[in-house]
């Protein structure tokens, strides 16, 4: 109703103050709308750019051949990206979920728990290139693994840990206390309550966290340069002492080359990575939406 007054629908002759306030409101609505428009436009322009260039660069060869210097396909890089992220995920899920359970269920309010929570929050903020350098010093150099799948995956796993731990913690916190209490009342033990009641109840939240951390790891480049480096060949099955190829490297490195064939590979790689990351985000969104729809 007040908006009606401000827009002049009720009073025939608004005062100067009212006029000023009306125009200020309109001005701010315009500014806020414009801000959202700028962001939406930037994202759609970027996506359009990647899809337009990438779709034209994709051929069957992209999936069947390995990179050869500045030409060929992307088979080795696609496989490498999936291997590195998949292995990282396999390591990060058990550790991250257990850490999340611990943070949510035990130690709440105690100093140890608070410090652990705070440090895992800070770990999220450590730049990924620092994690890469850490992996380089410890695994590539000190342990003598050289540039390798294992060094890259462990580095990415460390990066994923706080995300998974935190989303698990939050998901478990959201499960109503009564659920847990009923389970205890039925005589279930602590481990059973967690595994059979709490984890299934919080599974959508946990799954969203896992999906988002997978999407982040697929898009990473900087830590991999220091741990996986790059290889023009297909992975031959060694966990150490064998550099691995991955898609994001192709984007960074090949776009700087002066050859059209290299540029096409870079665009194709960008298309594939953006496609995967978008897909994962849409799925995560869908999972979360279904969950919130179920509750309310």
């Amino acid at each position, binding site marked *: 109703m*007040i*908006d009606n007054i401000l827009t002049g629908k009720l009073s025939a002759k608004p005062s100067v103050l009212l006029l000023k*306030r*009306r125009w200020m*409101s309109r001005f701010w609505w315009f*500014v*806020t*709308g414009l*801000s*959202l428009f*700028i*962001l*939406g436009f*930037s*994202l*759609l322009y*970027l996506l359009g*750019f*990647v899809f337009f260039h990438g779709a034209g660069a994709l051929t069957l060869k992209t999936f069947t051949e390995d990179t050869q210097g500045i030409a060929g396909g992307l088979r080795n890089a696609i496989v490498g990206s999936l291997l590195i992220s998949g292995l990282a995920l396999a390591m990060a899920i*058990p*550790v991250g979920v*257990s*850490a999340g359970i611990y943070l949510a269920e035990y130690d709440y309010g105690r100093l140890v728990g608070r*410090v*652990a929570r*705070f*440090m*895992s*929050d*800070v*770990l999220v*903020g*450590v*730049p*990924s*290139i*620092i994690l890469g*350098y*850490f992996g380089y*010093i*410890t695994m590539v150099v000190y342990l003598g693994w050289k540039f390798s799948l294992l060094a890259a995956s462990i580095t990415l796993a460390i990066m994923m*840990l*706080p*995300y998974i*731990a935190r989303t698990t913690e*939050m998901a478990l*916190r959201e499960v109503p206390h009564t659920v847990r209490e009923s389970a205890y009342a039925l005589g279930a033990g602590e481990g059973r309550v967690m595994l059979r009641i709490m984890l299934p109840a919080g599974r959508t939240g946990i799954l969203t966290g896992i999906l988002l951390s997978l999407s982040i790891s697929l*898009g*990473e480049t*900087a830590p991999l*340069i*220091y741990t996986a480096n790059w290889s023009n060949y297909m992975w031959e099955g060694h966990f150490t002492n064998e550099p691995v190829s991955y898609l994001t490297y192709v*984007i*960074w490195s090949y*776009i700087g080359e002066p050859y059209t064939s290299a540029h096409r590979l*870079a665009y194709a790689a960008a298309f594939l*990575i*953006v496609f995967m*990351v978008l897909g994962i*985000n849409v799925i995560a969104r869908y999972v979360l939406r279904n969950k919130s729809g179920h509750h309310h």
Partner: protein
Amino acid sequence: MAVILPLSLVAIAVFLTLYAWPAIHFNGWGFLVHNDWDLGRMYGNPIVKDGQTILPGASYGILFLIVGTLLSSLIAIILALPLGVFSAIFIAEGLKGPLREAASFLVELLAAVPSVVYGLFGYIVLIPFLGHHVYPFLTQTIGRVIPWFGGESGSGYGLLTAGFILTLMIVPLISATLRDALNSTPRALRESGISMGASRMEVVLRILLPQNRKVLIGATILALGRALGETMAVLMVSGNALNVLPSNAYSSVSTMASFIVSQLDSALQDPTGMAVMSLAEVGLVLMLISILVNAAARALLSLSGMRGRVKT
């Protein structure tokens, strides 16, 4: 298992420090205040100086990296703060139902796009456009009033371009966090504002925003931390300057994170290893800055009870 989390943070700090120790010892405080990153003569015989084996002529000073990192992040924050706040207001207060869902998702997707894809976009699309059209125009207009925007407009690589790209990358954090905070502000607050005769926008600007300022500050500091550590996108658009401080908004710069990547190959050529150790020291400085920034943000956010709801 939970102990692995804090442990890895401690391990990262300890190993970086141990590895960089000879460099810290050799470089001293000059590391932070000089502009003289020089690997020395690669084919010269290593000499011993201050008890450390180095290449002749080698010296390491990273003031230009610190300045480049802080300035590019500062530009990003200055642009991302209004964009984030206003877009959050429009989404939370101006849109409803599926439209609000879609707009929220669109903004959050900005954060999902990989850094290197932003770099590609900046390199192919933004740099030619900004370098040929926007920057020459800026020097002729704003540049006449504010000298920092005047002078050589450059090729498009540089501080301002890096700032623009960083803005897009960090704006979702601010926007999504504030949007959630606005959505969860008690109805009573909104209603009492309306009942006092304020319009909806007046309620948002005068009541809801001040109410959520701690959340906003916390999210902004977190976004700053994100910008400080951003690597690939900045590497591809910043021009990668060496040993010079930016003279205007279009100067090419390097940031600490991008420098660590761009220098790896040449640093590995140094047979004494001092170059790689000094890169580790760059990493250590960057890590200390981001830990400080993040700790401050988290402390603020937990004071305002928003810890769980921050979008990362």
